[in-house]
Structures are given as structure tokens and as C-alpha cells.
């Protein structure tokens, strides 16, 4: 709190902390002693200003993410009135509340549905497998860059970041074509007279495309984390008698723990709720819940069921998100001296 910079943002203009303090005593003006009340007052003004400046994005999120989610959850419990009435008007197979708090009818219907159960399994499978593969690849690349360096390692990193430059729609389409029945992979096998595998429109294609799309972020995160481990700490481990493998597992990876966890959680959360990738590359059935949500909403006109699925995915994603928050808090606790 030693400096007093001002962003000059419009919201901050309302409060001016250079104005005379409200404190009634004039003792502060007579000597170099600071008036504790004035200091407290200024701290409060700063705190309020921070809160004001930080609010707009939060309000936006609250209004257009938090509120609709609450609304939707209410709807999934059978509250069809109020703002939900327009949706409820056109919806089919609706469960309307039977108790004051609602009904679990929609949940019962969806959760016992065999197709949902199968697609939930597929969703979780794709999420776990893709995240594991992405993380493994990202770590190999990051460690290679850290420990070997040189142009080859740099080139490898650059190549792995290329997908970031490509829109997801295009990426999914490109991956699909590559592994399609008439795609590159099968054409290559056919050159030598072999029958190559067809991944297009399979769960495997979904995983391939997810890995393809998620790799850049994970590589950047892991590389940044591994790169931030100071040379001296690696040298110290080797000086203590640790080989490369041991140095990696005892020093580099634990120190890069937070960025790695962030890479993993963001990757997993992105994949578990994804729509475009499974929509383009996957089979009609089984597929991931993101596609089911869209189908139930637009094709079958059953928004309530769609919301129930979203809530289930949300619960799973929240569990992953908790890991992210925990890792962040753990890190700031550790670094605080």
C-alpha cells in the first residue's frame, strides 16, 4: 500500500482519496505524525474503489451466467413459471413441480435413461483419456525444452502450439478428414496394400481431436511452469547426486506443480463440456453429453432434460475446478514468507 496509483477508470472517478479526510481532528496537519483515522479512512476508500472497479465483469457473469444457471436449475426441478414460462410453453415431456420445492422427475428420468448413462460414461472416458494424453505430451515437451534446449526443442514447442491458431470448428473438421475412411491415414496404409483403421466418426476420433485442440494451452502452461524452476535448484539437485530422472521427479515437477494442475483442470473442464469436437468427429451414438444437450434442446424440444444433463456435467466439472482452486491457494500459502 505504499504507492497510490490510480487507473483513472470512470468508476473510480466518483471517489477521490486525495480530498481532505473526513477526520475532524487537525492534528495531522500540524506535524509529520500520521493520523491513524485518516489512514484507515483512506484504506477504506481504496478498498471501496477496488470493489467498484472489479464489479462490472462480476455483475455481467452474475446476470448472464449465475442467474440463468439458477433459473435453469429451478426449471429442471419443475419450476415452470416466471422467466421460465416461455421455454416451458414449447417444451415437451416436461416434469412440473409437485412439492413446494419442485420435483426430481426430470432427474429421475434422465439419470435412469440408458442412453444418458452410456453417454455419461463416454464423456468421462474421453475426458480422462484425453487429459492424461495431453498432460503427458505437454510434460514431455516442456521437460525436453527445459533440460535439452536447442532449436529442436524450440521447434517442437512451436509445432505443439499451432492448434491454438486454428478455430475449433476447423480443427474438428480437419481431424475428421484426416482419419476418415478416405482420409490420409487409410490412404497411407492402402499405398502398401494394408487396410488401415477408420477413426472418423468414432470415440477414438473424439479423443484425437480433443488432444489436438487442448495441447497448446497445456504445453504453454507446463513449459512456463517448468521453465520457471531456477537453474540453481536443478544444479543443486544434481550436485547432491540426483540424476536427470530423479531431478525431474523430486525437484522440477513438484516445483511446477501448480501450473501443471492448472493445465490439467482447464483441459479437463474444457473437454468435459465440449460440443463442437464430438459433434463433428464423433459417432451419432454413443456421443458426449455436450451433443446430447444440444439435441435434447433443439431436435427433441426437451430443454428440461438438457438442463439436467448440464447440471450433471457441471457437478463433475466443479469437482475438477475445486482442484484448481485448491492448487492456487496452496501455492500462495507456500510462497508467503
Amino acid at each position, binding site marked *: 500500500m505504499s504507492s497510490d496509483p490510480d487507473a483513472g477508470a470512470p468508476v473510480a472517478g466518483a471517489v477521490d482519496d486525495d480530498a481532505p479526510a473526513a477526520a475532524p481532528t487537525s492534528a495531522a496537519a500540524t506535524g509529520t505524525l500520521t493520523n491513524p483515522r485518516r489512514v484507515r479512512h483512506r484504506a477504506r476508500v481504496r478498498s471501496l474503489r477496488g470493489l467498484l472497479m472489479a464489479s462490472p465483469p462480476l455483475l455481467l457473469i452474475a446476470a448472464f451466467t449465475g442467474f440463468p444457471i439458477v433459473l435453469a436449475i429451478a426449471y429442471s426441478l419443475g419450476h415452470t413459471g416466471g422467466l421460465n414460462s416461455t421455454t416451458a410453453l414449447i417444451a415437451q415431456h416436461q416434469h412440473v413441480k409437485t412439492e413446494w420445492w419442485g420435483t426430481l422427475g426430470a432427474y429421475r428420468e434422465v439419470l435412469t435413461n440408458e442412453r444418458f448413462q452410456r453417454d455419461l460414461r463416454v464423456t468421462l472416458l474421453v475426458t480422462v483419456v484425453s487429459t492424461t494424453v495431453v498432460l503427458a505430451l505437454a510434460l514431455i515437451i516442456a521437460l525436453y525444452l527445459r533440460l535439452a534446449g536447442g532449436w529442436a526443442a524450440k521447434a517442437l514447442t512451436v509445432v505443439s502450439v499451432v492448434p491454438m491458431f486454428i478455430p475449433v470448428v476447423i480443427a474438428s473438421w480437419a481431424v475428421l478428414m484426416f482419419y476418415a475412411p478416405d482420409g490420409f491415414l487409410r490412404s497411407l496404409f492402402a499405398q502398401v496394400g494394408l487396410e488401415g483403421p477408420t477413426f472418423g466418426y468414432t470415440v477414438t476420433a473424439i479423443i484425437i481431436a480433443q488432444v489436438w485442440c487442448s495441447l497448446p494451452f497445456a504445453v504453454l502452461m507446463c513449459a512456463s511452469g517448468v521453465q520457471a524452476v531456477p537453474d540453481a535448484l536443478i544444479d543443486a539437485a544434481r*550436485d547432491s547426486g540426483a540424476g536427470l530422472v530423479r531431478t525431474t521427479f523430486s525437484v522440477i515437477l513438484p516445483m511446477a506443480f501448480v501450473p501443471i494442475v492448472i493445465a490439467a483442470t482447464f483441459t479437463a473442464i474444457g473437454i468435459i463440456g465440449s460440443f463442437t469436437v464430438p459433434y463433428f468427429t464423433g459417432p451419432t451414438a454413443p456421443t458426449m453429453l455436450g451433443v446430447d444437450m444440444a439435441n435434447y434442446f433443439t431436435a427433441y424440444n426437451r430443454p428440461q432434460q438438457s438442463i439436467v444433463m448440464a447440471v450433471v456435467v457441471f457437478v463433475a466439472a466443479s469437482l475438477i475446478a475445486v482442484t484448481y482452486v485448491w492448487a492456487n491457494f496452496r501455492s500462495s500459502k507456500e510462497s508467503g514468507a
Partner: protein
Amino acid sequence: MTTGLQLEGLHKELGGRTIVENLSLDVATGELVCLLGPSGCGKTTTLRMIAGFLEPESGRVVVAGHDVTSLPPEKRPSAMVFQNYALWPHMTVTKNVAFPLRLAKRPRAEIAERVAKVLELVNLTHHKDSRPGRISGGEQQRTALARALVQEPAVLLLDEPLSNLDAKLRVRVREDIREIQQRLGITTVMVTHDQDEAMAMADRIAVMNDGRIEQVSSPQELYSDPQTEFVATFVGSLNKVEGRLEPHGLTPEAGLTSAIRPEAVAVVPASSDGALDAEVVRVTPHGHFAEVKVKTLGEVELVSFVTGPPPAEGDQVGVRLGEVWRFRDGKRVR
């Protein structure tokens, strides 16, 4: 006297530049040798070659009779205390110190015992479960020292071990390190750019310049009998005069530099016997002594250290010169 560490003709180039040039040095067992020099002189490079982080283009590193030149750092019997201590922030003090022993696959009981012993030696027992981020700079330094000592290395390497401590702590810690080093009789190479530190701690000092060792001597000898102009200038204060300076006058001589320590310049009353006439140009008090700059022999300015009441600026005085060294091409000549 056995040789704890031998460096034979070490040569290192980095990016086409010669950093260390044909460097040889013998360190006796139990001896503490300081590599002293300005930044960029190659002292840290030399230390990193001893530790194994850099591979010399030619030359050998021999520890207690074994050639370790081709071994990676983890296989060498040396242990290093890094400049910024390089403590692993995710491990406690105990875990940091125990790590080398765990790598060496020592039995659990032995690890606990040795770690406890070394933590007691560096007086850190009360912090054994703290993380490095939560202890003071001096304590971090001692942790780093403990982590090196616990390995019972044949050679201890110290890379500017005191540079991150404040001035008061530095004096105490250097005494502590020296005391522990002598008690354990451990062969030690230390890198520093601080001559006071080197003087206070080392058995011998190797002054380095431009990738070469200029002189290896005891601290006293280094000060009173420097063999090169660089050593004379780098260690302590020095008056330098072009030409041949003698107690009774100055004769011009091309390529010859005369040098005299301020202590060897005595300020005496004007027209004293055998003294040169001089005028006081500036007086800088330093508490227990004053730095007095005089002008003599025309344009020659000399600095003298005066312990008694100093003369005033503008006073006419006499100067009596003690031992004068002469250098030609940087080398000491008669």
C-alpha cells in the same frame, strides 16, 4: 601434505570467447582457497568446472587422486553451496538436507542421525521443519551449507556464499563458516569478489583476471608482496605513478609504473630530513584514520593514511616514501 584437489590446465570457451585459460591450481587437504577476482574473470566458471556443471575443453579435475573430469555433477565427490542457496521451496529444511543422503540410499536411521548432527553443527535444529521461504537469509545460508556438509564431500565449493547477507551478518557468518571448515578439516574452494572476505577466510588466495590466475599466495603475502600490477591494484589501495619513483625523486622511464601503498607514504612536517616537499590537496576523514592526498614532485598526487591529527587542506608538508614496487607490462620488476 596430500593434495585434496588438483586443477590441471583447465581451459574453457563459451560462445567463442575464452573464459578460463590453461588454469592450474593445487589445493591441499583441509585447505581453504579463495578464487578472488572482478566479475567476468572466470572464477565462477572455474568453480562450475570443479562441480561438473561445465565441461572443460581441455585439462583435468583431480579430487583426492581420482580424475573426475568426465563425471557428471551427481557422481562427483564435491558439494556446492550456491550463491542464492538454491534451496528447494517445496521441501522443509530437514528434507532439503536429507535429500542427498536419500539419493545415496543411506539407511533411514543413518540419514536421521547425520541430518540431526549437521543441523546442530550449523545451529538450525529449531527450524528443522520450516520451509525455506519462512526462514531468514542467514538461516537459508546455513541450510545450504548443511545440505553440502551432510554429504561429507571431499571438496566443498562455496559460490559467493555471503553476497546475499547484510554487512553485519556477513562478518559473523564468515567466521562461522571458517570455524566449521577448520573443525571438519574439509578441503574448500570459495569464489568471491570481496577481498575482505577472501582475506578473512582463506588459507591462500588465487587472484584471477581474464581467465588466468595472477598469483596464489597467503593473504598477507598477497598484500605485502604482489607479483603483478593487477594484484597490487585489486587488493588494497595503491598509489600509481608513471616512471621510476624513488625516495628522493621521480625519473621518467617509458613503460615503467611505480606503485606505493598509502601506508608506505608518511606525512611529516615540512622540510624534514629526506622528505619530499608536498602540499595537502584534500583530507577525507574516516574516523580512526584520515585519507590525506598530497601533491609532490610537481604534478604527482599521492594518498597517505594518517592516524594522528591530520593536516589541513593547503598546508605545506613533507612526505617520506617507504617501499616502492615497479611494474613493467604488468609484471613486477626490480
